[in-house]
């Protein structure tokens, strides 16, 4: 072992000791006791449940037979699971969830993401089939690992190249044959569907749900997972339906789940009249929900890689103010002072009223990016005065 390696050993041991020194062993012991008490109860419960399960299984068989007879007679559509509608999401997607997700409360971030994940698999590593993920999200941008920032804004047109861009990333292995993607026509519209595994973790590969300065805002591939992905045209924006499971899981079952999800997917809030070009059409109310995203995107484009500032924002909003559907234009207030805008973390605020509904947002200038949202600006960003 070299001197350097000996130093490494010593430093790792010291670090581990220091970490452990901060832990409250007594509290941890109490926590373990609580867990072991629970585990003991669970064992007893399992014994009872094994008995109950036999009885229940018999009952289920009888019930299924009864339902089957009723279906034959009444032509009732098969029960498929729990329905869900993303009222808070752009394009307002609705779908029928796979069984395992039906009892899980999804994590929903306003506007762009809903997620169902099996949080506890009971052991490490998880058993196959017990580490599943379903996500519906609308990526706003790609992730550029070189710059450590979000990349280009994804429109549906750009999303047509989404898969080809994905496949060019090191470590991505499409498991479907040629052609790589399938075109599918759903009730929700046209979709491209692909199955992908990766030989390594690829942070940010699936894009980011906001203009991001952190990989934490982006979706990632994880090595050892099988991913079924559908890109659906949600008006101007791509909507991604993503199913992920351990590669060792039952792929046929995963495909069947995804088929069910896609076959039941409906988009009821698609801004059908919105186009990618800047025009008054976006002023129509059905486009308003996505308007701030468009302004952020256009302002970022105007900054063209330089420090984004208020003038870029002003230029970006101008065309939208001409829209017929806007009853009242933008009103925005500057940051705390003109002199130190770039070091301030207080955002510029902007508001828009369309058909009597006003939304107010914070506008942040993060390097070349204009970020518009309801939260505070990231540390270090300025109002860009």
């Amino acid at each position, binding site marked *: 072992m070299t001197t350097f390696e000996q130093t*490494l050993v010593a430093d790792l041991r010291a670090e581990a000791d220091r*970490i452990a020194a901060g832990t409250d062993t007594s509290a941890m012991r109490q926590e373990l006791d609580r867990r072991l008490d629970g585990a003991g109860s669970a064992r007893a419960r399992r014994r009872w449940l094994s008995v109950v399960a036999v009885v229940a299984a018999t009952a289920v068989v009888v019930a299924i037979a009864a339902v089957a007879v009723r279906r034959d007679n009444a032509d009732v559509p098969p029960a498929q699971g729990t329905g869900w509608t993303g009222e808070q999401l752009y394009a307002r997607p609705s779908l029928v969830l796979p069984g395992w997700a039906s009892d899980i409360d999804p994590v929903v971030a306003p506007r762009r993401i809903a997620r169902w994940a099996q949080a506890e698999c009971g052991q490490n590593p998880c058993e196959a089939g017990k580490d599943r993920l379903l996500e519906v999200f609308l990526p706003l941008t790609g992730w550029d690992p070189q710059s450590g920032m979000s990349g280009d804004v994804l429109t549906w047109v750009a999303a047509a190249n989404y898969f080809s861009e994905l496949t060019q990333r090191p470590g991505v292995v499409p498991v479907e044959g040629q052609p790589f993607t399938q075109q599918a026509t759903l009730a929700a519209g046209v979709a491209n569907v692909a199955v992908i595994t990766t030989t390594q973790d690829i942070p940010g590969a699936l894009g980011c749900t906001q203009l991001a300065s952190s990989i934490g805002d982006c979706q990632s591939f994880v090595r050892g997972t099988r991913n079924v992905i559908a890109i659906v045209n949600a008006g101007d924006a791509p909507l991604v339906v993503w199913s992920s499971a351990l590669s060792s899981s039952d792929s046929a079952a995963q495909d069947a789940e995804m088929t069910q999800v896609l076959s039941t997917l409906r988009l009821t809030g698609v801004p059908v009249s919105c186009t990618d070009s800047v025009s008054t059409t976006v002023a129509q109310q059905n486009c308003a929900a996505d308007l701030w995203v468009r302004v952020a995107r256009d302002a970022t484009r105007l900054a063209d890689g330089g420090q984004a500032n208020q003038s870029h924002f002003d230029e970006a909003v101008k065309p939208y103010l001409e829209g017929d559907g806007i009853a009242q234009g933008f009103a925005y207030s500057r940051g705390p002072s003109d002199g130190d805008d770039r070091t301030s973390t207080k955002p510029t605020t902007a508001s828009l009223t369309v058909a009597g509904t006003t939304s107010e947002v914070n506008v942040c200038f993060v390097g070349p990016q204009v970020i518009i949202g309801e939260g505070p600006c990231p540390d270090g960003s300025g109002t860009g005065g």
Partner: protein
Amino acid sequence: MSEHPGPQGPPPEAALPTDRRAAVTALFHAHHRRLVGLAGLLVDDRGSAEEVVQDAFEQLYRRWGSLRDPQAAVAYLDRSVVNGSRSWVRRRITARGYEPPDPGNAASAESSVLDRERGSALVDAVRTLPRRQREVVVLRYFLDLSEAQIADWLGISAGSVKKHQSRATEALQQRMEAWA
């Protein structure tokens, strides 16, 4: 390379109590802090490390009856903590929360890596390694596992272990030279 456990590993277990709960409790007292340290080297906050270790003891308790050799319980715990830590990082990535420590940003490191005063520069550098390299470094130099054992634990080839270890030590040495 010696057989596991390594430099931070425990002495051979004295005879464990025959009662399952008493045995797990005895193992807890003997190894809890060491395991929190191990998990802490693989994840980025103490709370998660403690959680991973709690999970490991709970699993051990649940599976005590299926252990062929209670003396192997320590190895089971070590491996369970490594797997748990890796799973935690994996879930963190899929949960969109993964933010690798910034090697050039001390403030960021201070705020995101453990609620601690700063450790050595070398350990900080280990935390900036790609995940797989970091795992190999911890298993090799903290747990003192052989390449074959690491390959088995991580589910990769021995050649990959050698490659990751080589790249990691090279990167660490370069980082230390740059800081010097």
